[in-house]
């Protein structure tokens, strides 16, 4: 195994080795007095360091350019593809997980859930998501997906005394396994149709079997395999749509998000969704990116466009009716998946590179903002007085202006109001969609943005304009250095990327899939 190979794999290796090390450390630390010292404080910092170094390694590789890693790429292909696209997603994933563990470092001790397993689970899950983002083969994709999901199932059930949490985990686990089975079945059909499992070969088969000077036998083979291909593609898309919680495969999302401890929710809304999107883009663009499959008339774009419209609209309409902020954020994350799907559809159009950059940039910004929003929600509550409903937030602007300001910033970013990064990300995404001539889709997305503003603003209304009802239980903000650091970090990123997006945008634009 050469040094070059190690270098190319370093982001995933750092995170997974770190997970193993921390697991050991956690097991051995059972000897010490837990009453005196919280296991979270050291583990949170430890895993934050691991994730940060994983992120830095990915960033360094990105800057150095994957072209200098030819040896590693040749050795890893087609199972794992280390290109700029995966490296960009590595950065997003490690960033999302980094913020998550910091939030957990404050949340778990406060809510007496202080067990060290959480951190290795986050790390392992992140490693799975990274493998998923880099996967170039149906098999590695499935392994990555399962590694990622298993960790998350456990995290959702982390509050094991609470029936709600267990129910959420059970629901998520059952539906998740079902989706994984669909994905696997789809993969099997694709293999049956093409005889290949890696994306580039599947794409090669699609492009070269078919109608370009076929012999009779080839023609026959192709026509026989077409239904298999189509069903396989449909099943794979459904499996992925489940993970990104696109409507109508979203039913598990609100329950799982609400039942899980908030850091786990954060991780699901941020990193897991980003990983699934990376996979979706890679499968559709690499395996089914040929002219016929990616055309509006005969391929997947109209299906995905319908999913996007349904996801945006349904997510938005239900989000507006929620009484719990956490549930509202869950539905809003569904809506954002819809916006990103618009970008994915646009990638099939004429402005592919631009759409690719737009989706990547949007994913980055969405991850930061949504993690920030959940983080601020964590900071709003304390043990026994968690901030859950809108009423809990009443008058927070007066009681604790700093927390309220942080929450408003992230809410503004999610709603897409300048000068936050969320606005710019939306603008660029919609611009890419217009460039691809998907104007109707863009208009629907824009209208949805306005509907979204309604429920995002309600949070501000309660924080700044309402006083708590006398006698009503109110959320008492907690004090935690970990959470504060994570929020300050995320807030700075949201502002900096909103005002000066140029370089990051260029990085996103050049992070294309290399086949």
């Amino acid at each position, binding site marked *: 195994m050469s040094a070059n190979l190690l270098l190319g794999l370093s982001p995933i290796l750092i995170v997974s080795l770190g997970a193993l090390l921390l697991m050991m450390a956690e097991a051995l630390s059972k000897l010490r007095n837990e009453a005196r010292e919280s296991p979270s404080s050291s583990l949170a910092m430890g895993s934050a360091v691991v994730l940060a170094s994983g992120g830095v390694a990915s960033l360094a590789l990105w800057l150095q350019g994957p072209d200098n890693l030819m040896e590693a790429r040749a050795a890893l292909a087609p199972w794992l593809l280390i290109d700029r696209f995966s490296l960009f997603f590595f950065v997003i994933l490690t960033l999302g997980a980094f913020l998550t563990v910091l939030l957990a470092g404050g949340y778990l001790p406060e809510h007496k859930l202080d067990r060290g397993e959480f951190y290795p689970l986050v790390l392992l899950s992140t490693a799975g998501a990274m493998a998923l983002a880099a996967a170039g083969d149906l098999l590695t994709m499935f392994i990555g997906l399962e590694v990622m999901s298993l960790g998350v199932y456990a995290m959702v059930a982390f509050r094991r005394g609470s029936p709600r949490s267990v129910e959420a985990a059970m629901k998520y686990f059952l539906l998740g396994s079902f989706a994984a089975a669909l994905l696997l079945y789809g993969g099997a059909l694709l293999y049956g149709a093409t005889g290949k499992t890696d994306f580039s070969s599947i794409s090669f088969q699609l492009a070269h079997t078919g109608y370009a000077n076929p012999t009779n036998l080839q023609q026959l083979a192709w026509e026989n395999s077409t239904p298999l291909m189509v069903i396989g593609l449909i099943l794979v898309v459904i499996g992925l749509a489940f993970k990104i919680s696109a409507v109508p495969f979203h039913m598990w999302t609100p329950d799982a998000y609400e039942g899980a401890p908030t850091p786990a929710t954060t991780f699901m809304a941020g990193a897991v969704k980003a990983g699934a999107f990376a996979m979706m883009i890679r499968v559709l663009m690499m395996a089914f990116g040929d002219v016929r499959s990616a055309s509006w008339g005969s391929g997947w774009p109209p299906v995905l466009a319908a999913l996007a419209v349904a996801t945006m609209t349904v997510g938005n309409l239900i989000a507006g009716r929620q009484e719990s902020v956490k549930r509202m954020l869950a539905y809003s994350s569904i809506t954002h998946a819809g916006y990103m799907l618009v970008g994915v559809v646009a990638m099939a159009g004429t402005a592919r590179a631009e759409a690719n950059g737009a989706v990547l940039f949007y994913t980055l910004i969405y991850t930061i903002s949504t993690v920030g929003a959940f983080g601020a929600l964590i900071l709003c509550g304390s043990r026994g007085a968690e901030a859950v409903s809108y009423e809990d937030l009443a008058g927070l602007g007066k009681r604790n202006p700093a927390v309220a300001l942080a929450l408003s910033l992230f809410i*503004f970013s999610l709603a897409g*109001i*300048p*000068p936050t990064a969320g*606005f710019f990300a939306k*603008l*660029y995404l*919609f*611009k890419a969609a*217009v*460039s691809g001539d998907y*104007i109707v889709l*863009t*208009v629907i997305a*824009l*209208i949805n*943005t*306005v509907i979204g*503003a*309604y429920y995002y*603003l309600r949070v501000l*209304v309660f924080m*700044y*304009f*309402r006083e708590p009802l006398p006698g009503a239980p109110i959320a008492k903000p907690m004090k935690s250095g970990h959470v504060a650091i994570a929020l300050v970090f995320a807030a*700075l990123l949201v502002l*900096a990327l909103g005002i*000066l*997006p*140029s*370089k*990051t*945008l*260029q990085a996103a*634009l050049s992070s294309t899939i290399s086949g």
Partner: protein
Amino acid sequence: MNATLGAMIDLWPAILAGAVGALVPRKPSTWQRAGIGVIAALLVLFVMKLWPDAAVAAAPSAPSGEWPHLLTFLIGLPLAGAILMLFMPRQSPGLLRAMTMGILLVDLVASLWLLTVPMGVGWHFVSVHDWIPALGIRWHVAVDGMSLWLVLLTTFITPIAAYVSFGSIGTRIKDLCFSLLLLQAAMLGVFLSLDMFLFYVFWELALVPMYVMIGVWGSADKIKAALKFFLYTMGGSVLLLAALLYLVHTYSKLTGTMSFDYLALNKVLLPKHVQMMCFWGFAIAFFVKVPLFPLHTWLPDAHVQAPTGGSIILAAILLKMGTYAYMRFGMGLFPFAAGLQSATLAGVAVFGGILYGALCSWKQDDLKRLVAYSSVAHLGYVMLGLFAGTQASMQGSLLQQINHGVSTGALFLLVGVIYDRRHTRTITEFGGLAKVMPVYTVVFVIITMASIGVPGTNGFVGEFMVIMGTYGSLRLGKFGGVDAVLAAAGVILAAIYMLSVVQRVFFGPLKNPKNRDLPDLNVRETLALAPLVIMVFVIGLFPSVLLSRSAAAVSAFEMRNRLVWMSAQELGEGEPKLVTQDMLLEGASGSAREGMANTLDEMDRGAPVIPPPPAADKPAADKKEASK
């Protein structure tokens, strides 16, 4: 040694931030000081590294006597003040008030500099910097005869509104100061930016502080009103965004470069039906803000619920953002579509604005609601002037925008005065106030006259010019005369509803015992009202002070629109293309052509340069031409 010194000079913002971070906080330990300092320095370093490399874009040579950073300063000062406000102590409201007033007054004085420059055709105080080069987004601010008076109106009204607010609002002063400063920056940004992206950012940014002002200090039903205000405007602006993105997309297809600049986008000539759709996307966004019937329903609610200071800014300046943006961008980018729709829209402005607004106003029993509906009527004149599109009507409309800012701002202030004393605005509660509040009555009557448009006051000149311009408008064709007559009838209605209010509130017997001991205007209110009353007469008696500075810009604007109209008519439903000067000046020749060419050049000062298409593409383009 020299190298170190050089590096230090390069990094001065970071070092400065570090020093400020280390020294400013009170009472931390040395370590904490060092930590905060390092974090501040690193943060600034981070921002410096992120900043686009391309330094100042080739700034057009500014005429001497114009400080190129003046406009940036005008916008930046309140913005910086707002950010600084976040770090000021909440416990000393006196300091916060003084700081806000200071910043607003400095802004006012600085804006007077704009008057020293002769405003001819074209842009002044142009300032261009690259912001997001990947998308061709630039910091492009400039002022011309059309925006000059609106900028001055903003810097003039906001200190007054702030001063009034400080008198009547006693809670959450810090939030109030923050909102006022942010609002000032955003409004100036809207009037000054020529980059459409920048414009959009400021347009949306102006929503937030106003939303806070209505939502925090409003009366009983404030939350609903605030939300209504926000959602109406935002609903309009996403349509604007969609149309804008399409325009930018077309521009980048035509030239191969991206730009959000107004001066670049106004070169794009779209086929008729596409132009129509883009025009409506822009127009609806602006009509919501104006507000034009039937999109006006948020306005009465917002005004009734807003605190006095908020109402003044809302009526005097925020609504002008809609009229100004329609004039500059709606008409400037799509002169053909705007022209085709103008007869219909003028009808809407007359019936839905002037007449309907006046009739609604007549029937109100809440003073503030009455003034709000009278705003709808007055803005009907403004919009009618724009739709008519003649030189006289557009200048009148511009003047009427200023007039409305002055007189309606003053009316809201006056209603606020009486509300502070009685905590009611119901007209039937009052009567005979002239006996207890003589000074107040005099001022109210003067402002009423201005609002009706009695000769000698400012309202007369604007309305007269609008009606006169409408009468002869070619765009409105045979409807021009009808519109003019009906608009003139609107003046009579204005007299009816305003005078009947004066009659019911100030004259007659003093029946209600609660009104017996009302104090007259106090010092603060007098100070706030005095400049407005003075302005009523200054504009009313010497309108040419304003008109002379805007005449050239308006006539050049009108000329360009006419030329683009002809080109667009020629294009019909053809492929979109870029307007060139030769295309525009096709029909003209000789010295007239030269003069027009000069004017067009002046109007393009500061426009982004379109790089010549790459050599490889050229033959292909030629072939296309040939095949045509």
